[in-house]
């Protein structure tokens, strides 16, 4: 080993610039409704919800190593509890967030049980939970089975106020949830999360609280997806269990995260953006659009499992929002084995988050 020691950096110049950029983007988004048409405001609200969904599924799968195909359960419950709370007389806007808190609370006992399952068993076990919850919600007389009901109390607000209010709520929720996730990944939990992602058994053996950390991500994801479900209800007013408990939501989440880059903070956001654009362009083509989504997810998982962002990051060493440390090895440090390291070897020794 040569004398040159590794340099440890936290963030890069690019990531500091990106930090400012993010603040400016959020500000611009906050004032945007002034300049946007009603339809555009609705679409932007949908985009924020997609970002939430992608980021939350990514938190679970990309960071917690828990692939679930039943996350629609929390989306549906977010909407359902909001209906229930509003029906009980709570202000509909307050209901949206109270509902998400309840979803988070409900996810806790579920996690006690489901986190003992592994990989495919967890994935499909969550689907069973979603199917069962859907059936149970159908039994609620208020919901009237698949007929569904509406968040009528929201109708007391006039349409344009309602639209902008929901837009801001969605923007604020997205920002807050991303900030929470970012904080988690950057803090001491982040180190645990990355350790688990890279090697669960090794992480456990050095004392990382694997189950506790996974549970935290599970509950966070449930809460976030609950927020998304409640917001979706607020934009569409009507609640039909079939639409909300549809596995399609999870399919969207998987698509966004796979394409954007699983296990990268930025990748999920990029994936949501791409999904939003694709939906805007091709959503009208109906079933071919869905076939395209499935096929794209399939192809990405086979050929580009790190997704777009993951691949770019690997190729160019890009990092905008720094969630961890990076270790730069001096060029000769890895030369002890006698082989000449390719540039790729030097950059791969950086922390990947």
């Amino acid at each position, binding site marked *: 080993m040569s004398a040159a020691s590794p340099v440890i950096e936290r963030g890069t110049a690019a990531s500091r610039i990106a930090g400012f950029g993010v603040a400016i983007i959020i500000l611009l988004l906050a004032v945007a409704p002034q300049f946007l048409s009603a339809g555009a405001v609705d679409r932007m609200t949908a985009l924020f919800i997609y970002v939430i969904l992608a980021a939350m599924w990514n938190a679970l799968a990309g960071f917690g190593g828990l692939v679930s195909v039943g996350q629609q359960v929390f989306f549906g419950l977010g909407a359902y509890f909001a209906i229930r709370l509003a029906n009980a007389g709570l202000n509909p806007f307050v209901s949206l967030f109270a509902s998400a808190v309840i979803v988070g609370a409900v996810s806790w006992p579920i996690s006690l049980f489901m986190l003992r399952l592994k990989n*495919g068993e967890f994935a499909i076990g969550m*689907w069973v939970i979603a199917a069962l919850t859907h059936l149970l919600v159908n039994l609620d007389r208020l919901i009237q089975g698949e007929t569904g009901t509406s968040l009528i109390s929201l109708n007391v607000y006039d349409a344009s106020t309602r639209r902008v209010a929901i837009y801001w709520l969605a923007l604020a929720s997205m920002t807050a949830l991303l900030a929470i996730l970012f904080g988690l990944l950057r803090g001491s939990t982040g180190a645990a999360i990355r350790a688990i992602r890279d090697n669960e058994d090794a992480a456990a053996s050095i004392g990382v609280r694997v189950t506790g950390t996974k549970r935290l991500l599970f509950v966070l994801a449930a809460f976030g997806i609950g927020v998304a479900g409640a917001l979706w209800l607020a934009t569409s007013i009507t609640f039909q269990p079939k639409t909300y408990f549809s596995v399609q939501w999870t*399919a969207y989440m998987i698509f966004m995260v796979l394409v954007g880059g699983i296990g990268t903070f930025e990748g999920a956001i990029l994936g949501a953006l791409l999904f939003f654009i694709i939906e805007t362009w091709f959503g009208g083509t109906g079933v071919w659009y869905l076939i395209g989504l*499935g096929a*794209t997810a*399939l192809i990405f*998982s086979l050929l580009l499992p790190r997704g777009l962002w993951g691949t770019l990051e690997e190729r160019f060493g890009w990092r905008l929002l720094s969630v961890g440390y990076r270790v730069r090895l001096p060029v000769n440090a890895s030369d002890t084995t006698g082989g000449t390291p390719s540039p790729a070897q030097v950059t791969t020794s950086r922390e990947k988050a």
Partner: protein
Amino acid sequence: MSNQIVQGILLGGYYALIACGLSFMFSVMRIINLAHGSLAVLSAFALWLLASRFHIPPFLGLLIVLPLMAVIGGALQRFLLERSARGGALLPILTTFGLAIVIDNVLFEQFGANTRSLAPFIGSLSYDSWEWPGSIYVGKLAVIIFITAVVLLGGLQLFLTRTGLGRSIRATSEDPDTAGLVGVDAQRANAVAAAIAMVTVGLAGAFLGMRATFDPYAGATQLLFAFEAAVIGGAGSLWGTLVGGIVLALAQTLGAKIHPQGFLIGGHVAFLIVLFIRLYTSGLGLRGLLRFSTGKVS
């Protein structure tokens, strides 16, 4: 009541049929194929197409569809599962889920949203029944399905324990590297296993179409049934799948008796209860609830 129990047990045969391919594939390749149900529905649609368009009765159509399913299975393993399994345990879940979405929507694109059934093409078999003592009526089709399940499970067991290919598959499932070192072509063993699994899926799809209706999105439900039956049956032997199927069917029957909407709920609840008991009594980490040892239970 005893009538319903008999019907429940017979229905369990169908669940065992659809579950055995899923758990077989899991035990050999450690992959849960999320496109399992969709592939069964694909087989049902293929038979429906043969029957309605070309007037080939479903039982004859199986002669075309089952070899096709075997080919699909081999190709699936070769081009999809093997590739994605190299990327870790999570990737195959995503790959097969993507595949399920593609299959479901292609079927929808081709056949529309209408529910279909193979019942019109099998003549009186769809409603014929025998009267058993105690004025219990059992459908001939239900009995055929049950017997098929038993024969299939038994045949699979014999194949795995008594033939060289079966041993190769078991060796590959236990330790693919060492299997290669003793001369087993692990790739081929996996492809054969996937082909066999898909043949069972094709059969299950046929019976799904004969005993009930199906539509392009029916795959998800079938997948859940298969998974639940396989997990309830547990880590015993292939026969555990049969027990799992029967328990699932009886729970559904019981659920339907309690509440008109209770059929599916009963099944899901039974699954969760069994899972709960299993997780908290065994104490072990439970790597692979689905795994079964294909040899004699020791």
